[in-house]
């Protein structure tokens, strides 16, 4: 029994070595084949649900780019994989650059993983579009020349919801209790929230840091009740949000629940009737503009459901990247960075166009607060949100809701 097993293991090892040796030349030949772009996003774990949408969005963009002639006359090949966790994300990014020969990287939702990929990008001098990570620190003290950020940062999420809450008189003098995801993203969001409360007279009476794998929130909900807050504020991420929203509805607390972070995928997963309150979002599939409608239609046709905001962001990010390569006639990182740093504007399927800000590489764009539709008004299970007016309001410069260089300083050594 043991003998044959050992022999089989040896045989397997030999076969594997053989396959690797034979496999090598094809990697070397890749220079003339399709243009490879690496895409990493969590497909498992607490962000896996929304990562699935990101992958669908990137794939649709790649198909459309190829159908319209590709990049520099070559087809693009999207190598899209599960980033799993920060350590694996970094290993995979390095492998994609070294062995697969990708010309650029994009993706990610987990801020901790995005940070490790940013380091790989800098080390290998490859452009990386961080598409779903929201931590301010990535744009500030951790920023680097090769990394661009297409999702809105935590400060903007806080400002979008904060503005709406102030209009409802729900900030000044009110007691807030926050529940915060215990990793770089949550810590960062709490910091932004604290800055907001300090500025607007909100009173933070309690905070709980919550591990990303927590599924039962009942002990935390009991602590919330003990603190007797006026408003409960969710600074969680991914499945944490859905679990909290469901269990908050289960306990039926009277304190209004609001949040500084939510992805529409989490709202859909919570289900109609469970979610209440005011939340932020960078995009929603009901936005009324031609580009957005066209994208939503193509996405539904292919996948049978509307795109979530991560599908949107990975779709436009890959499109912007491909367009830049065609415009500069190059995949050279230095040329691409120079191109983006000109702050040229891109159609983001929103009311206003956006641009990458030169000093921190943040894609400056509108955000929206939203509230939840009554179940009876929903057209289908995805028609859950009512978007508020864009933040900042039309007429005000987009950058007013973003951190300034003094607030979130970034220095990029050349």
């Amino acid at each position, binding site marked *: 029994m043991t003998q044959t097993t050992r022999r089989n293991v040896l045989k397997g090892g030999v076969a594997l070595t053989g396959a690797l040796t034979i496999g090598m030349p094809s990697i070397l030949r890749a220079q003339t084949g399709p243009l490879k772009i690496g895409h990493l996003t969590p*497909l*498992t*774990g607490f962000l*896996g*649900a*929304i990562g*699935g*949408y990101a992958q669908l969005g990137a794939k649709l963009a790649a198909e459309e780019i190829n159908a319209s002639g590709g990049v520099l006359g070559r087809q693009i090949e999207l190598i899209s994989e599960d980033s799993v966790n920060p350590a694996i994300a970094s290993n995979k990014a390095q492998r994609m650059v070294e062995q697969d020969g990708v010309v650029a990287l994009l993706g990610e939702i987990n801020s901790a993983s995005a940070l490790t990929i940013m380091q790989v990008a800098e080390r290998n001098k490859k452009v990386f579009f961080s598409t779903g990570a929201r931590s301010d620190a990535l744009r500030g003290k951790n920023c680097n020349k090769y990394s661009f950020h297409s999702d809105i940062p935590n400060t903007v999420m806080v400002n979008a919801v904060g503005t709406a809450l102030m209009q409802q008189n729900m900030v000044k003098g009110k007691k807030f209790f926050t529940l915060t995801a*215990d990793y770089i993203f949550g810590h960062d969001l709490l910091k932004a929230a604290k800055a907001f409360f300090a500025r607007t007279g909100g009173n933070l009476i309690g905070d*709980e*840091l*919550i*591990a990303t*794998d*927590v*599924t*039962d929130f*009942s*002990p*935390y909900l*009991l*602590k919330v*009740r*003990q603190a007797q807050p006026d408003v409960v504020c969710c600074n969680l991420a991914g*499945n944490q949000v*859905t*679990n909290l929203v*469901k*269990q908050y*509805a*289960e*306990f*039926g*607390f009277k304190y209004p629940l609001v949040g500084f972070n939510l992805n529409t*995928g989490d709202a*859909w*997963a*919570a*289900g*109609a*009737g*469970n979610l209440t309150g005011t939340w932020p979002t960078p995009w929603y599939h009901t936005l009324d503009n031609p580009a957005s409608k066209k994208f939503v239609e193509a996405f539904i046709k292919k996948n049978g*459901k509307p795109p*979530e905001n991560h599908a949107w962001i990975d779709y436009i990010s890959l499109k912007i990247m491909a367009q830049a390569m065609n415009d500069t006639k190059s995949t050279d990182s230095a040329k691409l960075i120079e191109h983006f740093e000109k702050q040229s504007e891109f159609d983001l399927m929103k009311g206003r166009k956006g641009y990458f800000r030169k000093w921190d590489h943040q894609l400056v764009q509108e955000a929206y607060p939203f509230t939840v539709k009554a179940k009876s008004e929903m057209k289908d*299970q995805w028609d859950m949100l009512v978007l508020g007016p864009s933040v900042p309001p039309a007429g005000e410069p987009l950058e007013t809701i973003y951190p300034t260089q003094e607030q979130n300083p970034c220095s990029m050594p050349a």
Partner: protein
Amino acid sequence: MQLVFLMEQVVNGLVLGGYYLLIALGLSLIFSVGGVVNLAHGAFYAIGAYLAVTLTNMTGFLPAVVISPFAVAALGLLFERFLLRRFYSADPILGLLLTFGLAMLVEQAIRMIWGSPPLSSVMPSELKGAVIVGDFLFSRYRLILLAVVAAVLVGVWLLLHKTPFGRVVRAGIQRPDMVAVLGIKLQPYMATVIALGVGMAALAGALFAPITVVHPAMGSEIIIVAFVVVVIGGLGSFWGVVLAALLVGVVRGMTIHFMPAAGEASIYVLMFLVLLLRPRGLLGERMERFE
């Protein structure tokens, strides 16, 4: 006042322990009769949740919660007949590999059938809300859940200890050779117990679907806690599992009260301590096959 808050966490922990119990007890039962550590137990929990959510849309909540566990128990019979049966007397590592593989297979199958985004699931609104008893606050839904768990627990105990069926099962666990000598075929008894264990996991999935994220990997999330409970209680021990489940719930709640950051780690620390001081678990029997 502080004491009241603490008591509230203890009681809440007991309620949560009841839910762990539903999953862990099946895991323990299957180990007892088959000698296989069923790593696919979480997969059946996930199928139970997915079936319940799908059925809720067709039949309403209550029928869904009843039908789903029975459907999964039927799946459990197939699982026993075509897979598990071959591994009863094999090296335990093979059973582990088989069920681990099955767990991954089921997770991917769920992705293929239902898609990778979570299913949205809501409970009937009349079950929502809190019940306040004295100074304590309970979720109404979890109280109902606790009642169901208690009923299942009593039912399983009676089945194993007060019926002819249970006598054969218990005899089979201790001395399968003697049972065979008496001319009793153990096979159907084992199959029934495995279907029962798997059905309990599915019931837990169905009951928890309205208050947790229903996603393809939900099974692998829960199997770890279930396994911790069984290890603390002692593999194969009925009351050990009951005790351990309640203990795990309470320890987690207390830790979150005093040291929130250690909340999730606390149950592993508890397992570590128990294994260090009493390797067979709180009420476990000595296991010769592993020593």
